[in-house]
């Protein structure tokens, strides 16, 4: 109960404070007067002696008050009030400091909220860290290969493994849906029994699938996502009703809760109906829940043993096939992890630079306020109290900046989620939630303390009282300590900025290298459309209709766009007449089928021989075109034209042409050796990718092309439909985004640190006006003064650049996997980064240096 009394007392104290102070003061006055009377005359020396003996009246008053009331809180309140007043009196300084920090805090909060949602927050399933994806591992493709699983293998895995509580499969599926007269695909997934239970998510309405529904021939049932349910009307009694998708009628048995999306693009789920598939048909994804106490490594070990046994039992089908257990989070986030962490690092640098800048500003100010501070020290303020006062100011600044920054981050994040420029996984979970806010506040306070620390330490240093004695102009050598602190701050800003500039330079070089690979085809002026596989049989019909459109130069189709690698490939399928079949990865060859119009439509160039013609039809002798990479590999010393090859068929095809290599951005060296077979002579296999080369701007023909396609086939779903240029740009949108972002951060860092250097040098020139005046009076030339000031800036730059280059040397290693065609220690990037920074520093020093040369010695000396 004692603390209650205390609380009561402290709460009441403010109301009694007046009386208390009056009493205490009277009491002390009484004491002093008695003492003085005892010591001698009431006025004069007696009173002074009494005072000396008594000590600091104000301090004792304060001390007594503290025993009663909220002295701590009151002092804080006073500090805050005082700090607000000081900040309000210097709106320019306050605005600059708050804006600088808001920039840093806003940018880092925005990046952190993305990192938090994508990398840190657990997936929205029950015990998500126990969920694993299990893949086949095709050893010839490397240790981390993740290949879809055949149903036979899955069944054997499931029967044999002990590491998992559950193991289920899913595979993509979809239904046709009409938006007006345009058919679109609603993506979904087929899932095997216990899928929803395994993820630990219950349907929001209805139920999951029953074992009975997983038989062949069972009536078709579905579970809807929340979003699709809403689009279908959001009827709460939907369960048990049937829904018609195009020609398909399915019965709804359940609706999943809002936000459930797994696999990420699925909007509805069907039961997976196993069929008697062959072991070679790899088409399933496997998700499994680890048993309690089993580690990922243990599970991996067990799966590898099982896979090895299956290899022995099925040497034909399972040769070289292991298993790969991958935690679901890792699978979901994938290679974005490193890029996001790099961004976080970059934005952290920006934050530190901003903090250093504000620390510098505060240091300058504290030097300007030293007389005031000294006065307060002399009046009995404790050093801790002074330091606390300054820290309060800087934390207030940081909190204001934090509020502004969080507001900015809120809009940034909303825009980012809405645009989703890089198709980030889990993008819809990105939000400024409590955790992020907490983090932003913590960052604000931490940076506030960080950048307030230097000035606070400095102000509370003993010997400050000397400041009181100094005149306003008597500065110079005594200020060395302060200058040094500021110089170090400026140098570390420069170092961080150099690191960012070098990183941005590397990403820029890498991007340029990525997009300047020779493509081998001409993407400009081409419309590209992705059509479903089943239209391939009479695609010639559509192509001639397209060719009849005015403005169309050429139209063709193939199994892949020229910027993508062949969509199917095989090691050991290609056979060259008169030579044993090459086996394994070394013989890996891409398989394409193309119509005659494909080559001119893509703008591919011919190295030797000819492309296909309309006479290479169904009944003509089989022909093939190979790319240069294949010619180099399989016919290194002989002309391939006229040689005969085959791909699992009884008859041979004659090579009639060698096409130039084509590849998309970011493919180093030669593309995959690839063979093209003529449409009508080989089985198609993949989607139908149509190219239409136009003699007019392609977008002006896009409507007509699309209309023609629609007129030809009302029901087919047109996937991608864009210019080839845009598809190419899309393929590098992710590296471009990272490059632009890091470059933006680097630019920000450059500007902020240049301002920091400017401030430091400018201030030092202002303080040294007197000294410069003397130098000039003694005969120093303007050039000498200029050199002196620039030299000071360059010394800063030299230290900063040295530190920054060393830091970059170490830290750019993490960029390695993000870089294309550039080593992380690329000399040009390092040289440019430091060069740009040196220029910025010179520019920042030039103005103050110029001002220094204009110092009039007479004025400077009279300034005293």
């Amino acid at each position: 109960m004692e603390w209650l009394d205390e609380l009561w007392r402290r709460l009441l104290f403010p109301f009694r404070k007046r009386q208390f102070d009056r009493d205490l003061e009277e009491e002390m006055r009484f004491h002093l007067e008695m003492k003085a009377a005892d010591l001698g005359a009431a006025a004069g020396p007696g009173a002074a002696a009494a005072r000396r003996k008594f000590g600091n009246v104000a301090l004792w008053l304060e001390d007594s008050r503290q025993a009663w009331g909220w002295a701590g809180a009151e002092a804080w309140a006073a500090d805050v009030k005082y700090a607000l007043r000081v900040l309000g009196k210097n709106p320019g300084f306050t605005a600059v400091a708050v804006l600088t920090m808001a920039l840093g805090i806003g940018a880092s909060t925005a990046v952190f909220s993305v990192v938090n949602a994508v990398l840190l927050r657990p997936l929205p399933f029950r015990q998500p860290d126990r969920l694993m994806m299990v893949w086949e591992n095709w050893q010839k493709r490397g240790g981390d290969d993740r290949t879809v699983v055949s149903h036979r293998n899955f069944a054997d895995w499931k029967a044999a493994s002990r590491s998992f509580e559950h193991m289920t499969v899913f595979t993509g599926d979809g239904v046709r849906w009409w938006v007006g007269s345009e058919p679109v695909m609603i993506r979904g997934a087929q899932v095997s029994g216990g899928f929803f239970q395994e993820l630990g998510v219950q349907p929001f309405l209805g139920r999951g699938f029953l074992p009975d529904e997983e038989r062949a021939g069972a009536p078709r049932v579905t579970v809807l996502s929340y979003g699709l349910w809403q689009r279908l009307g959001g009827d709460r009694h939907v369960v048990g009703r049937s829904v018609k998708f195009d020609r398909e009628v399915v019965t709804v048995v359940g609706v999943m809760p809002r936000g459930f999306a797994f696999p990420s693009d699925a909007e509805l789920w069907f039961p997976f109906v196993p069929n008697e598939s062959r072991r070679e048909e790899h088409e399933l994804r496997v998700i499994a829940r680890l048993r309690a106490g089993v580690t990922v490594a243990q599970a991996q070990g067990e799966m590898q043993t099982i896979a090895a046994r299956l290899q022995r039992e099925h040497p034909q089908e399972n040769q070289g096939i292991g298993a790969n257990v991958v935690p679901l989070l890792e699978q979901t986030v994938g290679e974005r992890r490193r890029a996001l962490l790099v961004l976080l690092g970059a934005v952290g640098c920006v934050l530190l630079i901003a903090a250093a800048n504000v620390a510098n500003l505060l240091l300058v100010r504290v030097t300007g306020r030293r007389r005031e501070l000294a006065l307060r020290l002399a009046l009995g303020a404790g050093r801790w109290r002074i330091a606390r006062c300054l820290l309060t100011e800087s934390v207030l600044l940081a909190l204001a900046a934090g509020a502004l920054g969080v507001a900015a981050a809120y809009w940034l994040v909303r825009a980012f989620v809405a645009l989703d420029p890089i198709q980030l996984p889990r993008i819809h979970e990105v939000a400024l939630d409590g955790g992020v806010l907490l983090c932003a506040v913590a960052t604000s306070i931490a940076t506030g303390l960080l950048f307030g620390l230097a000035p606070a330490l400095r102000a509370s240093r003993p010997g400050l009282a000397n400041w009181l004695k100094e005149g306003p102009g008597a500065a110079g050598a005594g200020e060395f300590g302060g200058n040094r602190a500021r110089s170090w701050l400026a140098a570390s800003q420069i170092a961080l900025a150099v690191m960012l500039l070098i990183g941005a330079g590397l990403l820029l070089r890498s991007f340029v290298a990525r997009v300047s690979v020779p493509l081998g085809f001409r993407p400009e002026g081409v419309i590209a459309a992705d059509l479903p596989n089943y239209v391939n049989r009479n695609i010639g019909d559509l192509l001639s209709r397209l060719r009849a459109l005015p403005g169309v130069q050429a139209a063709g189709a193939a199994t892949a766009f020229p910027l993508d690698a062949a969509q199917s490939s095989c090691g050991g399928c290609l056979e060259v007449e008169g030579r044993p079949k090459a086996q394994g990865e070394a013989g890996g060859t891409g398989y394409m089928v193309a119509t005659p119009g494909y080559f001119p439509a893509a703008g591919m160039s011919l190295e030797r021989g000819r492309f296909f013609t309309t006479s290479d039809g169904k009944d003509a002798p089989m022909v093939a075109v190979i790319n240069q990479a294949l010619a180099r590999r399989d016919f290194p010393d002989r002309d391939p034209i006229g040689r005969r090859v085959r791909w699992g068929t009884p008859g041979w095809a004659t090579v009639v042409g060698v096409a130039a290599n084509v590849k998309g951005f970011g493919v180093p060296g030669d593309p995959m050796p690839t063979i093209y077979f003529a449409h009508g002579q080989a089985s198609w296999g993949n989607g139908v990718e149509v190219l239409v080369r136009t003699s007019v701007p392609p977008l002006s023909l896009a409507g007509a092309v699309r209309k023609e396609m629609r007129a030809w086939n009302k029901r087919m779903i047109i996937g991608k439909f864009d210019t080839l240029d845009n598809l190419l740009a899309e393929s590098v949108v992710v590296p471009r985004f990272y490059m632009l972002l890091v470059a933006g951060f680097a630019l920000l860092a450059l500007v902020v640190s240049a301002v920091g250097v400017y401030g430091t040098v400018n201030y030092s020139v202002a303080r040294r006006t007197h000294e410069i005046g003397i130098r000039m009076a003694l005969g120093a030339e303007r050039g000498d003064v200029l050199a002196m000031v620039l030299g000071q800036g360059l010394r800063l730059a030299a230290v900063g650049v040295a530190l920054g280059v060393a830091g970059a040397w170490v830290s750019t290693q993490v960029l390695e996997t993000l870089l294309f065609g550039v080593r992380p220690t690329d000399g040009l990037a390092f040289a440019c980064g430091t060069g740009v920074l040196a220029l910025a520093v010179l520019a920042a020093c030039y103005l103050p240096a110029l001002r220094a040369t204009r110092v009039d010695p007479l004025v400077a000396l009279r300034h005293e």
Partner: protein
Amino acid sequence: MLILKTLAQLGPMHGYGIAQHIQLTSEEVLQVEEGSLYPALQRMLIKGWVAAEWGQSDNHRRARYYRLTAPGRKQLSVEISEFEKVMRAITRVIQPA
């Protein structure tokens, strides 16, 4: 402890009197800033070891008199015995063997 003891010896006394008494009886060995007496007195007031009321001083001026309360007396005896314990210990240590 010194303040409590002074009050125990003198009965109700004002701050100045307490300070004078301590100084005189300790033969000016204990020199502290006299002002520090007041925060200490306030803390004792809170703890209830002393009570205060305004009264007339010897030279007819208003002064705040402090007097020892029962808890204060108890506290004094506790502190004295603590102190003696420490003193005894120190004496034993510094006594030549």
